């Protein structure tokens, strides 16, 4: 596609439910990042995929968070047993290995009631 696509754009869920957020990166981009942006805060790194390398999961805040990237393309971020503090905008970005520049999607706004 022309840009990074994320879905859903908005998600409202009840505390304790599981949610899945999807990211479709720019075709050919080998690197994919997930960030979390809470209200009034900067971007908090969650996880990074680069080609076939093991992902850098150092930013995942708890074991309720997981992510996978299938076939080196689409990625899914899963949050299990959601809690109110998980409410945030989840941003996905992709980049070419060599350029360093990140191209962002519009984000998925998660609201946990």
């Amino acid at each position, binding site marked *: 596609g022309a840009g990074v696509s994320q879905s859903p754009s908005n998600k409202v869920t009840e505390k304790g439910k599981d949610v899945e957020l999807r990211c479709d990166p720019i075709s050919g981009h080998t690197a994919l990042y997930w960030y979390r942006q809470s209200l009034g805060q900067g*971007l908090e790194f969650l996880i990074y995929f680069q080609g076939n390398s093991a992902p850098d999961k150092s930013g995942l805040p708890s074991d309720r968070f997981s992510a996978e990237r299938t076939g080196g393309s689409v990625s899914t971020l899963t949050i299990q047993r959601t809690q109110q503090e998980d409410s945030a905008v989840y941003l996905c970005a992709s980049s070419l290995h060599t350029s360093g520049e990140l191209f962002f999607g519009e984000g998925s706004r998660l609201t946990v009631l």
Partner: protein
Amino acid sequence: AQTVTQSQPEMSVQEAETVTLSCTYDTSENNYYLFWYKQPPSRQMILVIRQEAYKQQNATENRFSVNFQKAAKSFSLKISDSQLGDTAMYFCAFMKRIGPGGSNYKLTFGKGTLLTVNP
């Protein structure tokens, strides 16, 4: 660990005037990249400008320019002839290569500066 500090949570400027957003960072690395990203109310982050640390010349992109002071670890963004469309959150970011052969990237963002351009 790298840290990126943006000391101005909010700023405002009159249309057509010039404004400078500050950013400092802390690193022991010698080779790295610096970026300014813009996030308008539409939420999508877009790259404004980038600077390679090995380049002494300051990067410029039309009305946007940076003042890169490597020794001081400072990377400020100057916006000239401010326009209403420049109203956005601006994030400074630091990137370094990590892993075997520098094949991976580590990107750290500051907390952002909310810039409002007033008519």
